[in-house]
């Protein structure tokens, strides 16, 4: 687009502005308060509310809306003439006529854009004849109440849901005064409950039930921090009253999420107040866990450690990658101080293998080479393995926006999806676990096109390893038609900047390390400007990797424990007995370890088997630093204090160190070390030969989709009543066509059978499930999906039997 700087006149003053740019941005940049109700920088200009009108004095048509008028050379604009003010007053007067005014008791009072503008501008005094129609509130949703009598039809909710969220659950119907925002045929909201619509509503027409509080806006304290549910790292703004979160929003313009949140970041914070939270340490006495003081518990833990050292056994720690960097550094130092050979690990976690053994050998470091901004701006994006809408909602939104608003395409190659395939061009419906084969084919095809940089070290060996991966071969392995494969190769070949996105998450079938390596190689061979973004599941996986805490693999720690060599096992936010895949003998390892200390917020399966349980702060109760998938530092602020008696991980580690006689560095040194981690750069880049293994084709029956769900991924979220309330419950979800063919209705009992294993579930018909697929969301080790899948990463087909 033409972006030459030109001179325009604003209120008699000459200013330079980019030709073709949005007049509104220029005026606001000058510090002028131009009122808007329907405008949102994240959306395509709408021009609906007519409040941003300004007067053009250069003979090109009087009143123009600043939001949708492009800057033109020689433009003369006045923003506060009597005519402009009158137009705004008149519009406000009209809007108030059709708005149920109950400001004194309105949820949004003090935080209502309409109220604010009426205050600023006033309205003409005369009374206009108008009778507002009565319209019932939509209270059918457990989360969002819609009040059409307050709606001013700015359309922001509708457009965000469509253009940004890619869901289009709501739309406008009816004409004139009958125009209204509604769902398809008025059914109850059945969406992602991301809350974008509620956060964007300028008035009180959309209210979130969980935040329906009687605390007025001016009494709420606002604090921002980074969300720590997934690795996206969205900035959120919590509003507090008496130290409790009463509302959560995000501001347009926030980094990296530009005001977007997902259901977890919006509503999931009730976990912090869960009655199941541990608030006192527990110590095992006579075979039972009993409450104890911190002093007793820490003393017991230290004693256990001393005994292990005395008996010459190993000390080992496995921590969650949600651990903040400062806490992780202290933990590493503690273990080093205790025993030079102590085992330290952060697994098993989705994304760990992809980074540590997948991309590290290629990039020279366990990190991504593309940022979310790169993904947003790339000519072409290829998303692999999963639907980020389930695991990394922000990434999904970025993909939807680039294609819906700017027409930039992306491709999605995955076995299981949750709606993103509707926006993908092309969508490759892969057989589970065949991403590596697809990437090998693309490598060969793009090289034949002459698109790849052959000067990269290791190119020859890599190239040779993909030589057999022809389109015909790839079509056979992946199940994707040759024409679609060719379309993807063509799109990538034509693009100058390509971003690859590798999704990880529990229950996503296939070897993530192999796929990550193949993706890393291709991204390097695509040359300057192209890169790979690996999306780990937990918020600070990359940061934890950089602290050096991940010295040992979880499997090795388990093996040592099973062999009886581990005398002191410290589990920080890890739940081997409850949350690990069944392929890993977590429970057995616990039993084999001499002394087990568990540090967690809840009494997990693992904690129940521990000798000492230490209650820890979680999520936004913590203060510290993290590193996002693309390598940027993130500062986490404590938004709410943890419950009384609960401490942050690093504090607990310091206390343990004191008792164990290990000297830990002071806060200044830890801060300096933390800062140094941010700039870490990897070694030389080199390609490596790919090992393309071909999975067995699926047997007869349905594909089992055990991928995580956006509402809920199975561990901490289990304690959020809001999230579990929204998540569809334990059931097998299936496409309407499949249910009909099997003669099943909603709620019917059904038996899923595979290879000797069998579970009984209720059937639920869900239009979003692809035919041929049965969706049984992974929750924990004991649930249906887990029992069916057996070994992690192996996808299976199941038989459906009426029960």
């Amino acid at each position, binding site marked *: 687009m033409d972006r030459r700087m030109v001179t325009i006149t604003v209120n008699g003053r000459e200013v330079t502005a980019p030709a073709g740019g949005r007049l509104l941005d220029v005026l606001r940049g000058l510090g002028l308060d131009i009122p808007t109700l329907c405008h949102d920088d994240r959306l395509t*200009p*709408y*021009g*609906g*509310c*007519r409040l941003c*009108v300004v007067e053009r004095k250069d003979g090109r048509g*009087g*009143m123009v*809306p600043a*939001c*949708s*008028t*492009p800057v033109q050379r020689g433009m003369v604009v006045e923003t506060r003439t009597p*005519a402009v003010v*009158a*137009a705004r007053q*008149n*519009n406000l007067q*009209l*809007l108030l*006529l*059709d708005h149920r005014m109950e400001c004194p008791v309105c949820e949004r009072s003090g935080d209502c854009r309409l109220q604010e503008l009426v205050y600023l501008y006033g309205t003409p005094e*005369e009374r*206009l*004849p*108008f*009778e507002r129609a009565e319209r019932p509130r939509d209270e059918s949703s457990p989360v969002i109440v819609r009040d059409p009598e307050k709606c*001013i*039809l700015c*359309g922001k909710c509708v457009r965000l849901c469509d253009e940004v969220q890619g869901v289009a659950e709501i*739309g*406008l*119907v*009816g*004409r*004139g*005064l*009958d*125009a209204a925002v509604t769902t398809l045929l008025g059914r109850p909201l059945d969406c992602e409950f991301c809350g974008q619509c509620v956060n964007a509503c300028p008035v009180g027409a959309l209210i979130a039930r969980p935040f329906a509080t009687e605390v007025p806006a001016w009494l709420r304290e606002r604090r921002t921090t980074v969300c720590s549910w997934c690795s996206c790292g969205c900035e959120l703004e919590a509003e507090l009253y008496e130290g409790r979160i009463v509302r959560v929003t995000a501001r347009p313009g926030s980094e990296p999420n530009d005001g977007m949140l997902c259901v977890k970041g919006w509503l999931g914070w009730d976990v912090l107040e869960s009655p199941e939270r541990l608030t006192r340490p527990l110590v095992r006495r006579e075979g039972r866990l009993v409450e104890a003081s911190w002093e007793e518990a820490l003393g017991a833990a230290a004693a256990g450690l001393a005994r292990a050292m005395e008996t010459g056994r190993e000390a080992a720690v496995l921590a969650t990658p949600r651990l903040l960097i400062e806490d992780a550094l202290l933990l590493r130092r503690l273990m080093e101080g205790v025993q030079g050979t102590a085992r330290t690990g952060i697994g098993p976690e989705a994304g760990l293998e992809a980074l540590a053994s997948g991309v590290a050998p290629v990039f020279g470091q366990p990190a991504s080479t593309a940022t979310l901004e790169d993904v947003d701006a790339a000519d072409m994006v290829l998303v692999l393995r999963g639907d980020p809408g389930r695991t990394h909602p922000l990434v999904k939104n970025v993909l939807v926006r680039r294609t819906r608003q700017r*027409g930039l395409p992306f491709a999605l190659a995955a076995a299981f999806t949750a709606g993103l395939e509707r926006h993908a061009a092309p969508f490759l419906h892969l057989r589970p676990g065949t991403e590596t084969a697809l990437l090998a084919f693309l490598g060969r095809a793009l090289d034949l096109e002459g698109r790849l940089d052959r000067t990269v070290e290791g190119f020859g060996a890599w190239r040779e390893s993909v030589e057999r991966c022809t389109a015909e071969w790839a079509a056979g392995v992946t199940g994707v038609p040759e024409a679609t494969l060719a379309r993807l190769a063509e799109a990538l070949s034509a693009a100058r900047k390509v971003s690859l996105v590798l999704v990880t998450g529990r229950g996503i079938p296939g070897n993530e390390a192999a796929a990550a390596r193949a993706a890393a190689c291709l991204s390097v061979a695509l040359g300057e400007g192209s890169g790979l973004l690996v999306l780990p599941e937990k918020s600070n996986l990359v940061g934890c990797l950089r602290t050096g805490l991940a010295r040992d693999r979880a499997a090795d720690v388990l093996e040592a424990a099973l062999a009886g060599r581990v005398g002191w096992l410290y589990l920080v936010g890890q739940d081997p007995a409850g949350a690990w895949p069944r392929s890993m003998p977590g429970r057995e390892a616990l039993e084999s370890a001499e002394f087990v200390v568990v540090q967690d917020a809840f009494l997990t399966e693992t904690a129940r088997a521990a000798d000492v349980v230490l209650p820890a702060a979680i999520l936004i109760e913590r203060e510290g630093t993290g590193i996002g998938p693309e390598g940027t530092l993130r500062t986490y602020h404590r938004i709410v204090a943890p419950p009384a008696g609960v401490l942050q991980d690093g504090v607990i580690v310091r206390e343990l160190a004191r008792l164990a006689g290990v000297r830990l560095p002071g806060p200044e040194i830890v801060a300096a070390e933390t800062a140094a981690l941010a700039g870490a750069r990897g070694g030389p880049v080199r390609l490596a030969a790919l090992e393309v293994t071909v999975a067995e084709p699926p047997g007869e029956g349905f594909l089992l989709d055990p991928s995580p769900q956006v509402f809920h991924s199975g561990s901490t979220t289990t304690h959020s009543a809001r999230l579990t309330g929204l998540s569809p419950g334990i059931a097998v979800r299936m496409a309407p066509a499949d249910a009909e063919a099997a003669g099943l209705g909603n709620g019917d009992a059904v038996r899923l059978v595979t290879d000797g294993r069998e579970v009984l579930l209720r059937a639920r018909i869900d239009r979003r499930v692809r035919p041929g697929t049965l969706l049984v969301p992974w929750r924990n080790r004991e649930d249906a999906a887990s029992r069916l899948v057996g070994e992690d990463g192996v996808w299976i087909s199941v038989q459906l039997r009426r029960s």
Partner: protein
Amino acid sequence: MKTNSEAAGDSRAVLDRAALAGIREAVRPVIEGRLAARRGAEPVRREVLVCHGGSCVSCHAVPVADVMERVIGERGLADRARVVRVGCMGLCDAGPLVLVVPDGVYYPRVNESLARRIVEEHLGAGTVLDEAELTWEGPGGEVLRSREVPFFARQLKIALRNCGVIDPGSLEEYVAADGYRALEKVLFEMEPGAVLDELKRSGLRGRGGAGFPAGLKWQFVRDARGDVRYVVCNADEGDPGAFMDRSILEGDPFSVIEAMTIAGRVIGSNQGYVYVRAEYPLAIERLGAALDRARQAGLLGCDILGSGFDFDVEIRIGAGAFVCGEETALMHSIEGKRGMPRPRPPFPAQKGLWNRPTLLNNVETWANVPPILLRGAEWYAAIGTARSKGTKVFALAGAVRNTGLVEVPMGISLREVVEELGGGIRSGLPFKAAQSGGPSGGCVPASAADVPVDYESLQELGAIMGSGGLIVMDEGTCMVELARFFMEFIVDESCGKCPPCRIGNRVMLNVLERITRGEGREEDLDLLERLGDHIRTSSLCGLGQTGPNPVLSTLRHFRQEYEVHVRERRCPAGQCRALLTYTIVEELCNGCHACTKACPAGAIAGELKHVHRIDQDVCIHCGACLNACPTGAIEAR
């Protein structure tokens, strides 16, 4: 007699240029014969042109033509006469209308028995039917039986050139009437730049209402960046009362297809869309048939006439929203989205259908294109006024004698249209005003009726050219009620996107309603003006911006009438029921009690066979007594 399709040879073949020339040679004399039809011509063979425009079809033109065909067969007249079903002849008031050529005799309001007589007497015996019973009179009492009468003689048909002349289903007749010659010229003789130049010099302006120079618009789309472009025909004729676009699609669909094909060649587009409202089933049917026929003949599709140029046209059917005539809403609708306008810029020429550069013209504009390219810009530019060239089709309705479609040169005065073409006011009351441009337009008072009509002069009068709907009113029309009527339409049709239009127009309507109910307040007139002005300047799209026009223009030209409503609680035209005073004329009342029984308010008293009286304090002005009285004793003032 052979049909013209038969005369032209194998009609199912793909046509090349030589074939087109052959058709022209074979069929042209027939078409010329129809155009030249005059009274007194000596017929060897006759054609009976039966109007099959929408209006005539709705008053049973089809069975009339069927009867004529059957009787021609029965009487063995097939060698000497045939029936041709043509498009709209314009004089809808007189439908079903039949023209016998070459005699040039019109028969109005033909029914099946008259159809039989026309065949037997006129075609068979050569006797023109008795004129006295079959005529209708002009203002001076003249008989409208021939093309020489002002209704026809004052017209200059360019856009409607083929309507009422050719069979809209016959590609051959269209070709014979110079059809596809302009396309041939554009494909083989002219550079696209020269076509643009010709259009610009012709001065053709958009006939949809806004009057944007067509050549410039074509140029913008041609110059816009992008690899894919679209051509769109706006046939969502929403102005109630205007039907020239429907008539063209029904009567001459090939002319629109040819023009769109020409545009495709010039701007570099291979795909066109015609957006027609669903309320035009006949137009959709005939356009669809014409598209099929053009495709079959190779005049649409790949490699048109061997030129290497590909073009095709699809029909998109609207769902009856007035706002979908607005170009951005129309494009949303084609894309399958809610028909709702968006801000411009970007203009469709830059970002239109699916964000591609898009050329959007209305049906009448398209129909003007082939003749301009054929006869040259100078010919066209010589017609009309300094800034408005060519002709304009008006849908003449209301209080005039002759209602229907007329095509007249720009610059003609309203008075000429009303008095000469329209035949004057039917009721004999004085001509009061004409509403131009439908609900978005405004009133031109009789005092301004001598101003030459063009885009600018109408705008100065507070009206607009619009799509050409022209409703003529006599002194029996209340201007407040008229404004209320149009405002009701606008309120129904607002899309609801912007508050000035959605809420503001409703407030305007509420104010107008209370004025017509006799509850108007002194400040209401200022309120209407202030709010109307706000809506006009602040609304998003043309619908809102022009919505208050009927109110503002009637306020401007007939303010006193509003004041009488408000101050004297009286409606001078006697249209606002609530403002009428009902009294009983004693001399006429026979005391039958009919009014007493009809009155829902119990306001009428009187003994049987004695004069009744209306108690004005109780009367609710419903008018029930007026309708019930058998002797006309109730007077309403």
